[in-house]
């Protein structure tokens, strides 16, 4: 259950970002997140703990939206880019295990709506 730490870390990061804003922000209304299938983050768990982390902060009451991202690998043998079924990382086309993961490992904040 590291989602609580993630939520706290995210709020800390958003708060820092808001300090750079010329116009003061009183409230974060929406937070848009990208969640990779291989990020190790559980969407439901994150949604569950977020209100506890946000309580008393500028993010209190914010709505979370999630963009879920598949794993994509590029094969080092045949060069094909494919989306193998999680958790396997082998090339869907030729089966080679020599692949680079292009996406699906990240858990990112894309943007926030503030007022």
């Amino acid at each position, binding site marked *: 259950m590291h989602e609580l730490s993630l939520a706290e*870390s995210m709020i800390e990061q958003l708060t820092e970002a*808001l300090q750079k804003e010329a116009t003061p922000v009183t409230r974060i209304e929406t937070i848009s997140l990208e969640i990779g299938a291989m*990020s190790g983050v559980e969407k439901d768990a994150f949604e569950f703990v977020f209100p506890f982390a946000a309580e008393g902060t500028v993010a209190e009451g914010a709505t979370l939206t999630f963009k879920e991202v598949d794993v994509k690998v590029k094969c080092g043998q045949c060069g094909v880019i494919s989306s193998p079924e999680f958790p396997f*990382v082998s090339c869907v086309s030729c089966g080679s295990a020599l692949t680079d993961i292009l996406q699906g490992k990240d858990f990112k904040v*894309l943007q926030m709506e503030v*007022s």
Partner: protein
Amino acid sequence: MCEDCGCMEGNEKAYAQMSANQNGHSHDQGHAQGHSHSHAFDSGAQEKEIHIHIHVEAGVNVHVHTHTTDVASHRHPHVHTHNHGHSHDGNAHVHPHEHTHAHPHEHGAFHEHTHDHAHDHATEPAHVHSHSHSHSHAHAHGGDGGHFHAHDSKELRPSEQRRSRTIALETNVLANNDAKAEKNRNWLAKRGVVAVNLISSPGSGKTFLLEKTLDALRGEIACAVITGDMQTDNDARRMMGKGANVVQIETRSACHLDARQIEERLGDVIAGGVQLLFIENVGNLVCPAAFDLGEQEKIALLSVSEGEDKPLKYPVLFHGAGVTVITKTDLLPHLEVDINAYKASVHKIQPGARIIEVSAKTGVGMDDWLAYLRQLVTKG
């Protein structure tokens, strides 16, 4: 245009159902109306929009609704049920009025309504009723008394609601942890220290393997240990007295170590020519895998009694580990498990992953493990 009351946005419109009104008789009238309004306003407009609805009923009954607002947009379907019973006897008459109003609202911004209901009666004695209220929620009311509804929901002042804007970020949620981890990595590299982060389930044998490792490397490689547990310093006490600097981090509620905790303790253990730092993470296959601590290598441990499909169940760790150590191999004769199934699972998640099999108890495989550590230190 509303068929019942004939209202139009921004206009005044009267809808009349006229009938002769005579004294000396009694009659009951009733009508039920359902209508909805939807208004869109220019949020930049400073002028207030005023909507007036006038209802004329049987020549004796006029309702005026005034909606005043300066908000960006709002919708409010109205359902009105009016029952007007009239008893007329000569010049004297009594009007019992019953009004039920339900105003469900849907809107994204703060606004105020004022409703004025004036009733003019053509027959004597003439009287006027009026009441006003401001509200934002569905409500029902009976009678014709004045009342007031305050807003009880979270609302924005009009000065705030126009400032909503988007800030693009595109950053990792763990960016702050990652930045601290990178700082730790540089700090360690500057001092020639190699750090490894040991991650496994509770009870897989991390501490016992480290005890044996510190004994074996004593006098050869200067070691330090940061060990994390939710509670107790039992592990630190077990590893003390073996020539290494050892600190315990009690994480209390956290299920993993993070880069900040390591940063705070590095100065306590890295001294006197330490070459190799073992970070023994909190026993957990999930969470520690997400937090970079500034280590050079993540090491996953998997004991032979845990089940060969653990790498499939917890792929993030086993995919990211530089090496997987299969521990407690001395138990194999007592368990109906196939060590090749363990290895196959690891390789499904990370093809070509390096696997070291070890029994810290009997010492079988310790040479491979120590050779791997020596190689890390040599490479720096």
